[in-house]
Structures are given as C-alpha cells and as structure tokens.
C-alpha cells in the first residue's frame, strides 16, 4: 500500500512515520530538502519539489497511491493539491489539512476530506473549560 505525504513539516513527517510503522510504503514531498531530517532513519521515499508540480507528484508515485495526506503550510495550496490528487490521480483516500475552519467546511461539502486542527482546538479548549470545576456563570440577559 502506497501513501504520498505532501508537506513534510511537524505534522506531515509524523504522519509519514506512523504510516510507515504500520506497514505502508510512504513517499514524502517537501520543497525543503532539510525536511528529510524530520523523518529520522527513513527507509521510505523523499522527493524535493512543489506539490503543484505534476512531475514531482508522479515521481512520488501519486499514480499508484492508495492514500495521500496534504499538509503544507498553505491552506490554498493544500486544497488545490488535494483536488489534483483526488481528480487527476483518482486517489480515493485524500486527506487535506486546512487551518481555516470556513474553507475546511466549504471543501468538505464539495467532497474533499478536510481536517481542521483549528476547529479541533476550538472544540477541545471549550470542552476543557466546561470540564473545569468552577461555578457556572449566570447567563446575562
């Protein structure tokens, strides 16, 4: 099973290592060759280049991939690259990191599997406050 990870930062590299540990054949793509260091002792593939570049995607094995994770530092780049992987290469499992909750929701409605860490943080933080044992404030009317 082949997976392509676009954007090998903190998130992308960690996802890559986990999937590799679970037996996936993983190739990472990043514009910065130094990102390879984040992967530690890495047996998978690594391609230096931009995820909008067709040659780079193909060098990373997008044509044969069963799954793709897109997690560069740009929401719009992620959304475009995710759609390219889904539509041009027919990858069914494409997961896209989008920091802006509004865009994440919009593209989820269009059929893209978006993950929004900001929304997760909002929910988690709100829940954490609710879980604190402090007197419930009176709602002001």
């Amino acid at each position, binding site marked *: 099973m082949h997976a392509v990870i676009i954007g090998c930062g903190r998130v992308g590299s960690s996802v890559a290592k986990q999937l590799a540990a679970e037996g996936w054949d993983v190739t990472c793509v990043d514009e910065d060759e130094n990102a390879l260091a984040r992967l530690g002792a890495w047996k998978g593939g690594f391609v230096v280049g931009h995820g909008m570049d067709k040659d780079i995607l193909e060098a990373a094995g997008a044509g044969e991939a069963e799954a793709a994770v897109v997690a560069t530092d740009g*929401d719009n780049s992620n*959304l*475009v690259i995710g*759609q390219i992987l889904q*539509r041009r290469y027919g990858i069914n499992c494409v997961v896209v990191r989008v920091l*802006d909750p509004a865009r994440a929701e*919009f593209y989820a409605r269009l059929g893209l599997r978006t993950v929004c860490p900001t929304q997760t943080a909002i929910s988690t933080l709100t829940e954490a406050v609710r879980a604190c044992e402090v007197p419930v404030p009176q709602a002001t009317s």
Partner: protein
Amino acid sequence: MYVIIAGGGKVGSNIARSLIEMQREVTILEQRRDRFAQLEAEFGHAAMLGDATEIAVLERAGIERPPDLVLAVTGDDEDNLIISQIAKEGYGVPKAIARVNDPRNQQHFDLLGITETVCATSGLLALVEHEVPEHGLVRLLELRREGLEVVEVQVVADSPAAGKRVAGLSLPDGAQLVSVMRNGVAEIAVGETVIRPGDQVVAILKPGVEDRLRRALVG
C-alpha cells in the same frame, strides 16, 4: 453589473479603474496594507482590505448577491483557483475569470473546472511565435469549451498549397480555412480563393489534426 476583483496589483487596479470609468459597480480586494492604502486613496469605498480566499471577506464584499463577475487576479495561482471555486461552486457566481501566473498551472485550472483563464505569459509566448514564421504553425486562440482552435500557417514558395485554390486543397477532416492575409490585408477564405507564397492562412480546427493541416498547406 457588479464585479468583485480579487487582487489589487497592477492587473486588478487597472481593471478596477476601467470598470469604474464604465460606470460599473466594483469592489477590489487586497490583503497587503500598503497596496490597500493606495487603492483606497484612488477608489474610496470600492477598495476593501482582506484576504479574498477567506469566505468571510468575500461575503463582506457581497459574494452572496451574487456579483455578475468575479476576477481572480492575484499573483498566486492557488489563491486564484480557490477564489474562483468558492465564487462559482459556493455562491453561484455566473462567471469567474482567473489569472494564471505560471503557465504550468493551466492544467490545474482546467482540471478543477475553472475554464475562463488568462495567462499573460502564454499570450506573450504566442505573440513571440507569431513573429517566428519558421515555427510553421502558430496557435492563435484556443476555444476550450468548443473544443476547437484557431491557428495560423505561413505559406512559402515551395509549399504544396501555393498557387492552389482553397477548394482544390485536400485538408484533413476537422479543419477549415478561415482567412488569407496578403500584404497586410485579410480576406475571408472561400473555395475560389487562391493561396500564394507569402500568405498567412488562418484555419480553425479540432485539436489533433494540426500536423495533417500543416502537411497539406506547407509540406
């Protein structure tokens, strides 16, 4: 007519100026403060500060009305793609025109259904090729939706078409001559039109028959 322009650089600001002169209602969005200050000084309330890929910013600009036209003309192709998609698929904007900064990204706009695009680099390249007749066949215009293209061919003395009537040419299926330009004057090509060396012949054709058309005209 209401137009939202995303991107207030040279392209966006000049289009805004022209549209306002034509009495159109315009909002121009720019996220850089320095550029926005200039736009505001010139266009007043028609200028708005913000990232046009943010849905809330587009809504403040009135994307829900919806506008008749959205122009995505930032210097960033990903942004232009996302703006066009949100406008068309999210808000039913009837027409979105996107600027393609890097011609290699054209394929992504096509793939994602953003069919109305303008790429200055490709346009300039076509003009350069226009000046280089040795290239044989020059693409003047691509009609994507129609699946047709308009090309120009320079006929020379030893071309098989030289001296022949248009009706006497064996053109491939899916290609037809449109006009013949001689000494700077263009004539519509009809069956009786005779092709001469030095003529610039314009043809309309289906993609894929370019080589056969070239062989039929110039060998």
